[in-house]
């Protein structure tokens, strides 16, 4: 049973554009929602994370939007750059940050010149 659904599977965005990746979850006990960035041959690295008590969190060009009632959250990458080309995973946990993560299936982002 997939508890975190992620879309799209792949995304092509022009340099300077906005990349948007969406995730939906089923488990209402989830209380921590991180996004990870993974480059080929590397392990995932935490990009930004949010808790359900806020609807938006911004760090630099990266923003998480969170809709608790819809059980959805999304990652927005503003002014996308070729260096942002990577695979992005959303995740969720039900024990706060100190708990196992349930991951989405990933979005391969390609930013073109």
């Amino acid at each position, binding site marked *: 049973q997939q508890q975190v659904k992620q879309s799209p599977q792949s995304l092509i965005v022009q340099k300077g554009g906005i990349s948007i990746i969406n995730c939906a979850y089923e488990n209402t006990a989830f209380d921590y929602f991180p996004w990870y960035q993974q480059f080929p041959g590397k*392990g*995932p690295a935490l990009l930004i994370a949010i808790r359900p008590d806020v609807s938006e969190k911004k760090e630099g060009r990266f923003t998480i939007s969170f809709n608790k009632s819809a059980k959805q959250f999304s990652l927005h990458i503003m002014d996308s750059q070729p260096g942002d080309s990577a695979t992005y*995973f959303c995740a969720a946990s039900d024990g706060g*940050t*100190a*708990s196992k993560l349930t*991951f*989405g299936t*990933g979005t391969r982002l390609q930013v073109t010149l």
Partner: protein
Amino acid sequence: GAGVSQSPSNKVTEKGKDVELRCDPISGHTALYWYRQSLGQGLEFLIYFQGNSAPDKSGLPSDRFSAERTGGSVSTLTIQRTQQEDSAVYLCASSSQTGSSYEQYFGPGTRLTVT
């Protein structure tokens, strides 16, 4: 400082053989996680160690999989009688779980291929 390290980086084994994958967490991190990443799939939780507490083994897919963590540091994931469906990248992560920092830091993974 050194990050999470894993060895070997690649492992090719024949079906039916046993394999051991090693994880060296960041020094001082009390929590250690194993995940599996199959082609085209997200990361799948396998097992979680936290200090001296009993590990959370709820993600292990079968009794062929086991893991231990010695001395609260290094961990070994063992897969017995490997099957082709075990082929995946096995990722280890560690976390300090102190103060405000609970981020899971991932190693580069071990790519396991079962032929």
